[in-house]
């Protein structure tokens, strides 16, 4: 018997840079961003920089695209817009009992704590309820799951989906990563002094912290015996730093161990086109990732990060960034790292400033988050 393989058959990115993967890809290739300074937004006392949908655009896109009979929150509208497009492209029957929905989000409908949405029941504050509303929209009756591992969720969710499909219980998984920005999240990160007063600069000497962003990204995954022509989720690992609940390990213990695990079945690291890093542009995260890359012996592999285009999109980040990296390599492109200027980490990693071309068809997605959670995912196109 052939070991089953898990491949991505369709995807979507819905962000301030566009409503399709293609629009997003072209925007990132050009070096675009919607990062912008907000003053007095949500009556918050301090200005902040974030990548947000222009007021009303999400709602009008949703109303245009969907003739919904039920009310949905802004978070759900964004997630649904992304999922609808990916599912339509995939051609799968999302209502099938052989299909499961798995969400990745940190705070979902947290804004409902502050203010309700007319017609939306209060319990949609619960992540499982919002996941259920999304699955039910497509007529799917299976109980969905929500992976919530802080900022690392978007890669963890792919690993959970991959294993769940491998077990043979389902044929398809609709993996949706999504987070909307809110006073809750912005003031939380502000209290951590993690927000940059300028557009963020991953891995750079003068980096001053992260920017927040909102986005949804969807992957439709399928279990197959033959992966030819598709991007395969080849190996994934989640590891903990066992160091501190909010500061990454100086030795990059968790991130290194996750990297080591996904390299186990990849003896030829020369096959890797790029490591798509988390690259939040905080002092400690970027230094930690550089250390992990060095420890794993991957200093020769180009590194890029997309936070300069999107800010940190939380639960969406891991899904969005994996899709974007795949899309780039589809045409032999390693995307640039917007905001990067002069290397400001202690290890000589090769951060891409401009687009590079490559014929390699494999990469590693790296991610980390609060709670000491780190994850790595190796993807290969056969």
């Amino acid at each position: 018997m052939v070991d089953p393989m898990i491949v991505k058959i369709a995807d979507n990115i819905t962000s301030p840079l566009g409503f399709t993967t293609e629009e997003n890809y072209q925007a990132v290739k050009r070096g675009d961003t919607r990062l912008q300074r907000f003053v007095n937004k949500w009556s918050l006392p301090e200005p902040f920089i974030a990548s947000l949908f222009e007021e009303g655009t999400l709602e009008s896109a949703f109303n245009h695209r969907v003739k919904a009979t039920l009310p949905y929150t802004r978070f759900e509208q964004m997630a649904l817009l992304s999922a609808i497009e990916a599912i339509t492209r995939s051609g799968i029957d999302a209502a099938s009992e052989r299909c499961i929905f798995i969400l990745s989000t940190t705070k979902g409908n947290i804004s409902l704590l502050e203010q309700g949405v007319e017609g939306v029941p209060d319990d949609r504050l619960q992540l499982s309820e919002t996941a259920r509303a999304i699955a039910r929209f497509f007529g799917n009756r299976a109980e969905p799951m929500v992976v919530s591992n802080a900022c690392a969720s978007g890669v963890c969710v792919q690993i959970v989906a991959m294993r769940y499909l491998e077990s043979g219980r389902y044929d398809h998984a609709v993996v949706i990563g999504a987070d909307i920005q809110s006073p809750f999240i912005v003031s939380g990160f502000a209290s951590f002094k993690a927000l940059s007063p300028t557009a963020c600069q991953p891995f750079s000497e003068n980096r001053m912290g992260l920017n927040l962003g909102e986005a949804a990204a969807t992957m439709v995954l399928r279990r197959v015996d033959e992966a030819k022509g598709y991007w395969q989720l080849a190996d994934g690992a989640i590891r903990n730093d066992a160091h501190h609940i909010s500061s990454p390990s100086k030795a990059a213990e968790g991130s290194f161990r996750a990297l080591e695990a996904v390299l186990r079945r990849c003896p030829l690291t020369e096959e890797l086109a790029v490591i798509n890093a988390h690259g939040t542009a905080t002092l400690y995260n970027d230094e930690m990732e550089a250390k992990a890359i060095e420890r794993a012996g991957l200093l020769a592999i180009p590194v890029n990060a997309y936070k300069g285009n999107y800010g940190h999109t939380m639960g969406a980040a891991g899904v969005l960034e994996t899709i974007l990296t795949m899309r780039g390599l589809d045409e032999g492109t390693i995307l640039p790292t917007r905001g990067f200027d002069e290397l400001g980490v202690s290890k000589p990693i090769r951060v891409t400033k401009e687009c590079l071309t490559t014929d390699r068809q494999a990469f590693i997605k790296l991610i980390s988050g609060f709670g000491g959670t780190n994850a790595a995912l190796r993807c290969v196109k056969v």
Partner: protein
Amino acid sequence: MKTIHEINIDNSSAVIDGKRIDTSRSGSQMLTELYRIYVNDYPKFFKMDILCKLGFIASELLLQAEGAPRFTDRADRADRAILFFNHSSSIQADKAFEETIRDRSDFFPSPSVFVYTLPNIVTGEIAIRNHYYGETNFIILNERDDERIRQVTEAAFTDPTTTSAIAGWIEAPDNHHFTAALKLITK
């Protein structure tokens, strides 16, 4: 998969491997009582939100039942996974943090409350305490579904590094209502 030890805690009782542990308090005070009697050397406990306190105490009692040397970097335990599931995510901390920002004229968002608005912090707290570098994962389900939990846990063991795990249901909507049903499992 084999269950080695099992702990069940609710707001008024703690039961390890079917044997009830003597307690006189209830709610979060019972967790403090258990901390005083069975742990008492980890003041970080008092900084934790209710979800973390519950997970911390449950894991401590589970690991004391295991009786193996604690806090070593021995590979067989350093690679142990922590796989938790619940319904309400970190709702108690979410509400507490929202309180610190609700009134914009008295706006002092608290970082030490904010950090607990991420449900997976409890897995990190236990990993830190025990020097576990293995997988940590937090998954939210609509209701407790032991079969689903078993399936996801079983799937986690396909990672060849993972040979044992603390896994199960851990739900703490507020200081007075909580349930932990955790197992120490080997491959």
